[in-house]
Structures are given as structure tokens and as C-alpha cells.
């Protein structure tokens, strides 16, 4: 279970998100929708603790999350950032192992497990992460986040700049780990098809605040809302 209450935050003096509250139940997959620049990424960074809170709280499994990002990770908060940010001069294997070891898990086992979920990484495990293609890096960032054994996973634009076949594969794996391991997810995304394929519920953001909450069925029906969301 994961909850953000009354989050207000931004960069320096500039406030980007204002009084945002949302809730992700255990094993729930929730989409965070909205156009570019409405504050989705800022909200994600707020949730991880990478930007300091001006106001508001974050709860993981019913407990108040500690302030330091590193300690939030140990409380079970996984994060796949927009732009992936893999460790470029480390091998794919090291990227996964370091995440596991930093949280007291066995690195070798974590890598083996990751390769069963993402067989496409197998031929690449000894390559430097910086040399992988965009899609491979995205998969690696996901594998790295899973290696900390999270209970909640935050995904920021996981399909950005990723080729369609890999997008499908990512969607499949996310569904699988959600069912098999009961990991809850909050996905910020612009690709509506992708969201509809994995999420049950969605929040729509506008100008730094939550404008509405909706479910998959409504979203699928409401063409006007779709158009508006995507700015098409």
C-alpha cells in the first residue's frame, strides 16, 4: 500500500506540484496521466524523496516513509526514472547486482531472477549499460528497480523512446510481476494504449494538481477525454 498526502514540492522556490494526494492499494496498478509539463515527474521525484517536501507526507505499507531516498528504497520503494539513468560505465549485470546488494539481497540471485523475466538482457549482461540501446536500457532500469524487491514500483514514462516490440514486452512483464509478486505500481505515462493495457485506475494531472480520478472502462469509452489528455 502506498499513499501520498497533500504533496507540495518543486525546485528551489518554484512550486511545481501543489497539494497532491493519491493512493495505490496493495497489488494495484494505477496510471498517472496528463500532458507534458503538468508535474508528473516532479510528483514521482517527490515520492522517492529526491526533491525535498515543502509540505505533505508519503506512506509505504502504512508507515511514514523516511526522508532519505536510500532509506525509502529499503522500505520497498522501487523507482524507474524518466530517461532511465542506468549506471553507464557499469555492466548490465553490475547495475542489477548493486541494487540488490545495497538492500541486503544476494546480487547473483537477483541477476538470475532478472534474466528469467528479461531474457533479452542475457546476451548483454557483460556489456556496459551506457552502450545499450534505449529499449534495452529501459528494461535494465526496470530490472534494477525490481532487484531491490520493492512492494511499490514507481515508473516514470517507461515507454518513452522505446521501440514498439519492447513496449509490448515491458507491458507483459509488468503484468506478470504484478500478478506473481503482488507488486503495486504507479505509472506516469503518455502512451494511452500502454496504460490501458496494464492499469485498472488512473489519476489525471493538470497544472501541478490532480484534476480527476477515473477507471479503465471510463477512460476507454471517453474519446473526448482521450483527445484532451493527449492534446491531439
Amino acid at each position, binding site marked *: 500500500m502506498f499513499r501520498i498526502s497533500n504533496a507540495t514540492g518543486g525546485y528551489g522556490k518554484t512550486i511545481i506540484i501543489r497539494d497532491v494526494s493519491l493512493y495505490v492499494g496493495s497489488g494495484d496498478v494505477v496510471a498517472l496521466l496528463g500532458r507534458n509539463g503538468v508535474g508528473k515527474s516532479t510528483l514521482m521525484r517527490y515520492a522517492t524523496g529526491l526533491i525535498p517536501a515543502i509540505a505533505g507526507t508519503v506512506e509505504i505499507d502504512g508507515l511514514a516513509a523516511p526522508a532519505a531516498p536510500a532509506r525509502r528504497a529499503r522500505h520497498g520503494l522501487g523507482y524507474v526514472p524518466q530517461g532511465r539513468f542506468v549506471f553507464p560505465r557499469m555492466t548490465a549485470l553490475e547495475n542489477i547486482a548493486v541494487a540488490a546488494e545495497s538492500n541486503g539481497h544476494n546480487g547473483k540471485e537477483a541477476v538470475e531472477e532478472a534474466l528469467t523475466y528479461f531474457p533479452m538482457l542475457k546476451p548483454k549482461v557483460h556489456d556496459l549499460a551506457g552502450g545499450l540501446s534505449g529499449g534495452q536500457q529501459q528494461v535494465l532500469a526496470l530490472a534494477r528497480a525490481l532487484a531491490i524487491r520493492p512492494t511499490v514500483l514507481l515508473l516514470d514514462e517507461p515507454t518513452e523512446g522505446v521501440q514498439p516490440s519492447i513496449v509490448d514486452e515491458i507491458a507483459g512483464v509488468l503484468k506478470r510481476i504484478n500478478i506473481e509478486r503482488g507488486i503495486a505500481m504507479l505509472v506516469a505515462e503518455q502512451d494511452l494504449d500502454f496504460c490501458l493495457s496494464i492499469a485498472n485506475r488512473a489519476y489525471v494531472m493538470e497544472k501541478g494538481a490532480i484534476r480527476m480520478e477515473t477507471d479503465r472502462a471510463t477512460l476507454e469509452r471517453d474519446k473526448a477525454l482521450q483527445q484532451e489528455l493527449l492534446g*491531439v
Partner: protein
Amino acid sequence: MSYSNAIHHRAGTIFPFIAAILALGLARIIDPYLAYVATSWVIFGLLGLSLDVVWGRGGFLSLAQTAFYGLGGYFGSVVAINLSAVTGHSLLWSLPAGALFGALIAGALGWIIFYARMGALQSTILSYTFTLLLWSVSQSFKLDAGSAVIGGDNGMSNIPGYIPGFGAGAEALEPAGALMFVVLVAALAYFATQRLMTGTFGKIIDSIRLDIEKTELLGYDVRRYQVLNFAWSGLLAGLAGALFGGWSNYLNPSIFSVQEALLVPIYVLVGGLGTLAGPFVGATLIGGLSFWLGGGAVGGQTTLILGVVLIGLVLFLKKGVLGGLGDLWRSRLPDPNEAARGAGAVSIDPDELADILSEAEAQAGPAKSLRAETLFKRFGGVIPVNEVSLAFIPGQPFSLIGPNGAGKSSFLKTCVGVYRPEGGRVLIGDRDVTRAPIFQRVRAGMGVKNQKPQVFGELSVRENLWVAAYSRVRHRQRANGIAARVLSMLGLEAQAEVRASVLSHGQQQWLDIGMVLCLAPRVVLLDEPAAGMTKEETRELSTLVRILARFTTVIVVEHDMEFVRTLEGQVTVLHQGRLFAQGDIDTLREDERVLDIYLGRREHV
């Protein structure tokens, strides 16, 4: 304006003037030995000033100041030894020779550093290397230059003191006279520097420190300014070196030593970085401290204390004595940034805008086209711009759209000159600018507004616009006029004297656009101008772009399709680095393929 305010405004002139007068008066009263020692403090202050010019104002921590100082000292002294035997007057020869030599060497070193576009750390290290190289070479460098003997380790002696008179019998100044003379020279150097740094040159140097990329986008040849600034700092250091030679009558390689080099940033930090007068305060404080502790020479306990002082300054008192005092004073004055708090949303004046643009057209000529011919750019395995050919012509706004990662901003950066393409050409009008540096493209008529607002935060709103306008007209008064008109067009007159950094995000966007307009560009590139704007601001922006398109070529890179629609212009869709579709927005909205790439649907792609 209150007295306090008026004095604060001119503090950089008034207090140094008083200090110079005081020093001149005290020189006759104090003990000759103290006067002798204090002379060196003033010289060190001048050396500190040379660093403040390049570090505090130019933003480059140079560790080569003692190199210019030492070279100026050696060179000035060689000239003085040879010529003053004939003419008597030592200063006429040594000071200009030292100063010019320092400027020359600094200019040459600066040329290497700035034109190679070294990273900040590498620049600092290279400047340090230069000092160490001289230290190493000077140990064994032996040369008989006329009657001057440079003896490596043994140094160079018999350097004449300050001899103001002519003829063979002219005598050197006594300690009191020498102090007065040095104070006079330092004061002249200070006021000349202060004038330079508060004038046009200083404003451009400030702009470079605050945002070098933006300064170049305004059409300034930033590297030339950096080299010139560095040469000026070399001139001051060389002057200080020549004074030092005459003061000590002896020079040796220790002038290039690490310990000597360390003192310069300490003077600057103690006094206050960027204050210009600060280094004199710092040098006097530290000189005074070591005088009372150990009789003048810096060494022993003093070194220990200096080390601790440096650590303490970096950790706790980054602004130094003058910087700290200045903050204290400012906190008691009315806040000039108050006006920013009352400001509402920006609302432009369309008639004024049209006036400004038609005047710009009259001065800068008709709109120019921007053309890309089979433009190709790759980064490793990624090809963000794949043989794109596009022509943007005057008449209607052009929009460039596409999903994330389509290559829009890479295309833009290649046109602007941030990226060098591997293939193809970029033309502004008929001119091929594929290999031209950014500032030359701007001078050819290009105006660029990047996605994030780029303003010079420490300059006032008016100064921001002025710097942009001056780049085009090169005339202070005319630049004032242009800045005032753009200010009134933006409706920001009430905030004219406010620091740009306290403006809201939206206001900064408008100020940035205003700066681009000051350039009277013939082709304008706007990168996601509507990002982060409110609905009202987006509407204003749309009006602005449409008016702009009547006078110049306009290219807008945008995500917001609704905004693009309001522009009623030609739309180009990029996808995976290639041209995907072209047409007006309504046609494109009907195009299933375009919808697919936007929705992330995969059937047609």
C-alpha cells in the same frame, strides 16, 4: 532615493576613494618601516584585484595570476635596470613594460584555454600548470639581458627603486613616498578597472559568467571577451609585479611558488569575491595580521593560520568581509525587488509589438528563410536527425511536432549550431552557416529561445534587455531606447529594476522572448515556448507568434497540439529522426498515421 541608498549605489567609488585619500595621508605619519611593509600589502591587493576580475567577474578560477605577476616583475625590472641607468626615471619604463608583458602572456594563455573550450576544471588546472612550469624553468633560467642578470636560483638583484626624477642623479623614493606612489598607482588601476567592469564590457562579462550559452545566443563572440578580460587581469598582475620588483629591489623564482599562488585567492576570498575593492581589504588584513604576529614576512605560524582561514572562509564565509557587509547594508535598504511581488500575469501590447517589429524590419532588412538540406546527425548508434530537408520561408508560422524522441530538439540544435552535423547543410537566407559558430548565425539574423527561460538572474530586467539590444546596435543610447520599448511592450515597466531571478517562471519566459526580439532576428526559433505556461499566457504567446510571423520567419517546436492549432500555420511532423508528414493541422489531425504515433498505437507504424 535616500542618502543611504544613493551611497550604497556608489559604494564602489566612494569608499575606495576615501580609503586612498586616508592611505595617502597616513603614509607621512606612520613609522617608515610600517610604510615600507604596507606598500607590499597594496601591491598584493592589486594582484588580488587581477584575480577578482577574472574569477569574481569572469567566473574562471585562474591560478596563473602569480605567473603574470612574476613575468611582469622580471620583464619590467629588466627594462628598468637597463634604461633607468641612462634616463634615471625607472617607473616610466618598468610599469608599462611589466603591465604590457603581463597582458600579452595572459592573452596568449587565455586564447589557448578559451578557444579550446576546455572544461572549467581543466582550465583551472592548466593555469596552475603554467605557474608551476615557470617555477620549474626559472630555477635554472640564466640570462644576461643587457646590464640585468637573471641568475636562476639566485634571482635577479639590483632592481632600481621607484625613481620619479630624470637624469643620472635622480634618487629613489623614501618609504613614505613609495607608499604614496603605490597607493596612487593602485587607485588608478582600481578606478580604471571599476569603470570597465560597471560599463558595457563588464555587463557582457557578467552575462558570460551567468550564462555563457545565452550570451553567445545573443550574438556575442564570448571567447573574445573572455580572452580580453583575461588579458586585462594579466595587465593588472604584470603591473603589480613591476611594482613589486621596484619595492623589493630583488626577484627570485619563489615568486612563482605554490605558496605565493595560494595567497591570491585568499586575499580575494577574505575581502569578498567579485567586489573588486575586496582584495585590497583582504591583502591589508592578512598583511596586517602577519605583521603583528611575526614582523611582516608571511611564514611560520602565519601560514598555519592562513590555511585555517582559507578552510573557514570556504565553509562559512563565502562572501568575505565586503560581501558580508554589503549584504548587511542591503538588508536595511528598501528592497528593490519588491515590485516583482505585486506583478500579475504578463499581457503584451500587440500594437507596440507590431511597431517594434516593423522598425526592426526597416533596420535589419526583410525576413530570411532557414533551410536544412539532407541534414544528418548521429550520436553513436542513435541517429536523431536522419537526412532531413526542410525549408522555412517567411509568411506564416511553422510548427515542428512529433512524439518524444522524434528528433525535434536535435534538429533544432543542429540548426542553431550547438551540434555539428555529419552531413548536409544549414542556410540562413543565402548564407551557408553549417560550420559557423553560434554567434555568427545570430549575427546573420537567427534568434533562438530555448525551452527553459534563459535570463541573467543577477542583472535587472532592463539590463537583460539592454545586453540583448546592445549586441545588435553597439550603441549604448540606442540600446537603451530599444530596451525601453520592449519593456513597455511586455508591460514589465514596473519591474524594470528588479533582478531577473526574482521574476516568476512565466515572466522569465516573456523576458527571454523580449531579449530575442531585441536582436531584431530575421528568423526566429522557439523551442517549446508554451511549456509551463498558464492558459492565458499561452493565448498571449499565440498572438505574439502570429504577429511575429508577419515580419519574420518563425519556427516553433511544440508538444502542445492545441497551441499549434491556434497558430494557423504550416505543420511538420518528425518521427524517429525523419520527416514523417507535412501539412496544415486539420489535415494532419485526420491522418491516421499521425494519430498512431501520438497515441503510441502500433498498427500503422
